[in-house]
C-alpha cells in the first residue's frame, strides 16, 4: 500500500477534526441544528480517515517498506511479524498516531452511543473532542509525521529497541492509551457542561461509565507496564517511582477520585463543580503524562535537546487545551447550582474523604516529580527526588485511605453514624489485627505486618457491604444467595474492585519479604538459597529470529524433588548491538522463583536468583480491580441511563 495514502488520510483527518470542532462548538453556540447534526458524521469521518492512516502505517511496517523513514529507523526485515505490527506504536511518531486514532475512536463512540443526549450537549462534547484532536493531529502532521520517505531506500532497517520486543510491552501502549485518551470523554463532557452552564444527574450518569471504562484500561495499562518492568529488567523490582511511571499514576489517582465523585453526582447531584474539575484535571494529567514527559522537560537532556520544535509545539498545545479548560472552569463553575446536602459522616462524606486523600497523594507525587526541575530553575541547585522520598511520603497517606475504603461503602447516604458501621466490621478488623500481628512478629517487621493487616482489612472489608445486604448467616443460606444474585452489578463491581486493591496491597507487602542472592557458578555447580537447591545444569547457545541467546539451565529442587526448570538467557541483538536479559520466572501464585543470567567469567556464569513471595498478586490485584470496574460498567442501570455498550470501550 502506498504511504502517500496514509499521508493524505492524515491530512484529511486534520481537516475533518477541525470541522468537527468548529461545527460542534459554534453550531451549538449559535443554535444551528444543521451544523450540530453534522458533527457525528464528521466524527465518524475522522475515525475512518485516521483508521486508514494508522493501518497504512501498520502495513508499511508489516511489509518492511524501507522507503519510509519511520520504518527504517524502527524496524528490520528479520523482525518477527508480531513485533513488526506492534513496532508501529513502539516509536514516537507511530505512538502519536495511535494516540490520535484512539481519540478519534472516542469521538465516534460519543457520536454512535450519544443519540439520547440533548443535541447541543452532544454537539459540544463532540466539538471539544474534535478541537483537541485537530491540535494533536496537526502536531502529528507537521512535527512528527510517520509517513516521511527516504531515497534511496536502505537494504535493511536499524531495528527496534530489543527491550520492546516483548509481548507485554507490545500490548502495553494501546491499553495504556485507551486509558489516557478515554479520559478525554469526561473532559469533553465537563467542558461542554461548563459552556452549557448546567450539570445534572443525567450528566453524571453519562460521565461515569466513560470514566470507569477509561479507568479500567488505565489500571490494566499501568499493571502491564509494572509487570513488564518486573520480568524484563531482571532484578525483581516492580515500581520505581520513575517520572514516567508517576506520569501514568497521576491520572490514575485523579481518575479514581473522578470515578467515585461521579457516583455522588449521579445519585445525589452533589459535588458537581468538584467532579468537573476532576474530569479536567484527569485528562490534563493524561496529556501531560503522554506529552510533557516526552517534550523532555521532566527528563532533562534527552528529548528536548533532540528536537526543540516538538517540545515547544507540544507545550503550546498543552497550554492551550488545559489553560482554556481551566479558564472556562474559573469563569463558569461559580454559576453552577450547588447540589444535594449531606453531613460529613455519610456516604457522600466518605467519598469526599476518598477524593481528598487521592488528590493529596496525587499532589505529593506531582510535587515530587516536578520539584527537581523547579528547584533547578529557581536556584540553579540540583536535587534528586526518588523512591525513598515517595515511599516515605505516599505510603503514610494511603493508610487513612485504606481505612476508609472499607467503611465508606457501608455508610448510608446523606447522614450516618460511624458506630453501627464499625460494629458491623468487627470481624474484618479482628482478622486484620490477627494477621497483622502474626506476620509482624513472625518477620520482625512492623511495617510488613501493618501492610498485611491492611490487605486483609481491604479484602475482607470489601465483602462487608455485600454480607450486610444479603444478611449472611442471619437468613437461611439459600435466601442469602438469592439476594446476592439479585444485587445490582455495580455493588458487586465496587466489592470486586476494592478486593483487587487488597490483593495488590498483599502482593506489595509480600514483595517486602523478597530475598535474592547473586552467585557465580560453573555448569554442574549448585547453590542453596531460600530453602531451595538451585543447580546450574548447563549453558548453551540458542538462535532466535533476530538474536542469539545464551541460555542457562537451572534446576530448582526442594527436598530432592524438582520444582522447576528455569532457563534465563541473555539475548544479543546484532543489528542493534545490544544485549537484553530474559528472565525466567516460575510461579505457583504464592511465590515466584526468579532467575536472571549475567556475564561469564573464567567459565563461571553470574546468576541472580530471587524468591519473591506473593509477587503475582500485585498484577493479579490490578486485573481484579479492572474487572470490578468492568462489572460495574455492565450494570443495567448504567445502560438504561446511558446506552453505553461495553463493546464500545472494548473497541477503544
Amino acid at each position: 500500500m502506498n504511504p502517500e495514502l496514509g499521508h493524505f488520510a492524515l491530512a484529511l483527518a486534520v481537516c475533518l477534526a477541525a470541522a468537527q470542532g468548529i461545527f460542534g462548538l459554534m453550531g451549538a453556540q449559535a443554535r444551528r441544528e444543521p451544523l450540530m447534526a453534522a458533527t457525528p458524521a464528521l466524527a465518524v469521518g475522522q475515525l475512518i480517515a485516521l483508521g486508514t492512516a494508522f493501518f497504512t502505517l501498520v502495513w508499511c511496517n508489516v511489509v518492511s517498506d524501507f522507503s519510509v523513514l519511520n520504518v527504517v529507523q524502527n524496524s528490520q526485515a528479520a523482525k518477527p511479524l508480531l513485533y513488526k505490527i506492534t513496532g508501529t506504536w513502539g516509536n514516537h511518531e507511530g505512538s502519536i498516531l495511535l494516540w490520535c486514532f484512539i481519540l478519534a475512536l472516542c469521538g465516534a463512540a460519543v457520536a454512535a452511543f450519544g443519540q439520547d443526549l440533548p443535541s447541543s450537549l452532544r454537539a459540544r462534547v463532540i466539538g471539544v473532542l474534535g478541537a483537541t484532536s485537530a491540535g494533536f493531529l496537526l502536531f502529528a502532521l507537521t512535527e512528527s509525521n510517520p509517513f516521511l520517505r527516504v531515497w534511496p531506500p536502505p537494504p535493511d532497517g536499524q531495528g527496534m529497541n530489543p527491550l520492546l520486543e516483548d509481548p507485554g510491552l507490545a500490548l502495553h501502549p494501546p491499553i495504556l492509551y485507551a486509558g489516557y485518551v478515554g479520559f478525554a470523554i469526561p473532559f469533553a463532557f465537563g467542558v461542554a457542561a461548563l459552556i452549557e452552564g448546567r450539570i445534572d444527574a443525567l450528566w453524571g450518569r453519562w460521565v461515569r461509565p466513560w470514566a470507569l471504562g477509561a479507568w479500567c484500561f488505565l489500571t490494566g495499562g499501568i499493571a502491564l507496564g509494572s509487570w513488564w518492568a518486573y520480568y524484563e529488567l531482571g532484578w525483581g523490582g516492580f515500581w520505581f517511582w520513575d517520572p514516567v511511571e508517576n506520569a501514568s499514576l497521576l491520572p490514575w489517582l485523579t481518575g479514581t477520585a473522578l470515578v467515585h465523585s461521579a457516583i455522588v453526582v449521579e445519585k445525589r447531584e452533589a459535588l458537581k463543580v468538584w467532579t468537573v474539575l476532576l474530569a479536567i484535571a484527569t485528562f490534563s494529567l493524561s496529556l501531560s503524562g503522554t506529552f510533557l514527559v516526552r517534550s523532555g522537560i521532566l527528563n532533562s537532556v534527552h528529548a528536548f535537546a533532540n528536537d526543540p520544535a516538538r517540545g515547544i509545539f507540544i507545550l503550546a498545545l498543552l497550554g492551550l487545551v488545559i489553560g482554556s479548560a481551566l479558564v472556562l472552569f474559573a469563569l463558569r463553575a461559580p454559576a453552577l447550582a450547588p447540589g444535594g446536602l449531606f453531613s460529613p459522616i455519610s456516604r457522600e462524606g466518605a467519598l469526599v474523604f476518598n477524593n481528598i486523600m487521592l488528590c493529596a497523594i496525587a499532589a505529593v507525587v506531582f510535587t515530587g516529580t516536578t520539584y527537581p526541575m523547579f528547584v533547578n530553575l529557581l536556584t540553579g541547585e540540583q536535587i534528586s527526588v526518588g523512591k525513598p522520598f515517595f515511599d516515605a511520603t505516599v505510603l503514610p497517606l494511603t493508610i487513612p485511605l485504606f481505612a476508609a475504603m472499607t467503611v465508606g461503602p457501608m455508610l448510608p447516604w446523606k447522614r450516618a453514624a460511624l458506630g453501627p458501621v464499625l460494629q458491623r466490621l468487627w470481624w474484618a478488623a479482628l482478622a486484620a489485627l490477627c494477621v497483622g500481628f502474626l506476620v509482624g512478629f513472625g518477620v520482625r517487621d512492623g511495617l510488613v505486618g501493618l501492610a498485611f493487616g491492611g490487605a486483609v482489612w481491604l479484602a475482607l472489608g470489601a465483602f462487608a457491604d455485600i454480607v450486610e445486604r444479603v444478611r449472611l448467616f442471619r437468613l437461611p443460606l439459600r435466601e442469602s444467595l438469592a439476594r446476592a444474585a439479585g444485587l445490582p452489578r455495580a455493588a458487586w463491581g465496587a466489592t470486586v474492585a476494592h478486593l483487587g486493591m487488597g490483593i495488590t496491597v498483599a502482593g506489595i507487602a509480600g514483595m517486602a519479604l523478597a530475598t535474592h542472592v547473586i552467585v557465580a557458578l560453573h555448569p554442574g555447580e549448585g547453590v542453596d538459597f531460600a530453602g531451595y537447591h538451585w543447580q546450574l545444569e548447563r549453558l548453551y547457545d540458542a538462535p532466535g529470529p533476530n538474536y542469539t541467546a545464551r541460555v542457562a539451565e537451572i534446576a530448582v529442587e526442594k527436598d530432592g524433588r524438582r520444582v522447576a526448570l528455569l532457563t534465563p538467557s541473555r539475548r544479543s541483538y546484532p543489528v542493534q548491538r545490544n544485549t537484553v536479559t530474559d528472565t525466567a520466572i516460575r510461579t505457583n501464585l504464592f511465590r515466584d522463583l526468579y532467575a536472571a543470567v549475567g556475564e561469564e567469567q573464567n567459565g563461571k556464569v553470574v546468576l541472580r536468583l530471587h524468591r519473591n513471595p506473593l509477587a503475582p498478586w500485585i498484577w493479579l490485584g490490578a486485573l481484579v480491580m479492572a474487572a470490578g470496574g468492568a462489572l460495574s460498567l455492565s450494570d443495567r442501570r448504567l445502560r438504561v441511563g446511558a446506552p453505553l455498550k461495553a463493546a464500545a470501550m472494548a473497541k477503544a
Partner: protein
Amino acid sequence: MRRKRIPSARAQPIGALCLLAVLLAAAPFHAARAVSNPAEMLPDRAQELRAEAIGQELRCLVCQNESIEESDADLARDLRAEIRKRVAAGESDKEVIAWMVARYGDFVRLKPPFRMATLFLWFSPAVALAVGGIVVWFGLRRRPAPPQPLSAAEEARLKRLLREGLGNPRS
C-alpha cells in the same frame, strides 16, 4: 570485562528515539541491568545488606533516576565498591552518606535533605491535606446548616429539591 548497557540517548539518536518510545509507553527509564558481580558483595551478610540499603538511597549520577544499586554504569559500580569499602571499615550509614554528599552534593541523595530549598517538598503532604480540608470546610459551609434535626419546612424543601433533581433530568 565491561557489561553492555542499552545504548544511552546521548550515544545514538536512534537509541534516543527508542528510549522515547519506552518513555512514551510509561515504562521505567531503566536500562536492562544485567546481574551484579558476586565478587562485589561483602562476605558479611549483615554488612552487605547495610551497603545495599545505603546504595538504594543514593543516585547514580550519570543515570536517569536510578540508584547506584540498580545501575550498571561504571560510576555506579565504583561507588558501590566505595560504599562497601567504607562499610567494611566500620563507618556508620550516616558517615558513608555524608562522604558521598561532601563529594557529589545533595544531588546524590534520592531522598533530599530537609532544608530551605526542599521545605515545600517535605511539607507537600501536609499542604495538600490542609488545602483539601479547607476546600471541604468552605464547601460544606456554603450549604445551609448541617442536617441535624431538620425542621419540617426544611424537610419539605429537601424532598422537593430531590424530586425535581431526579424527576426531569432532561429539561
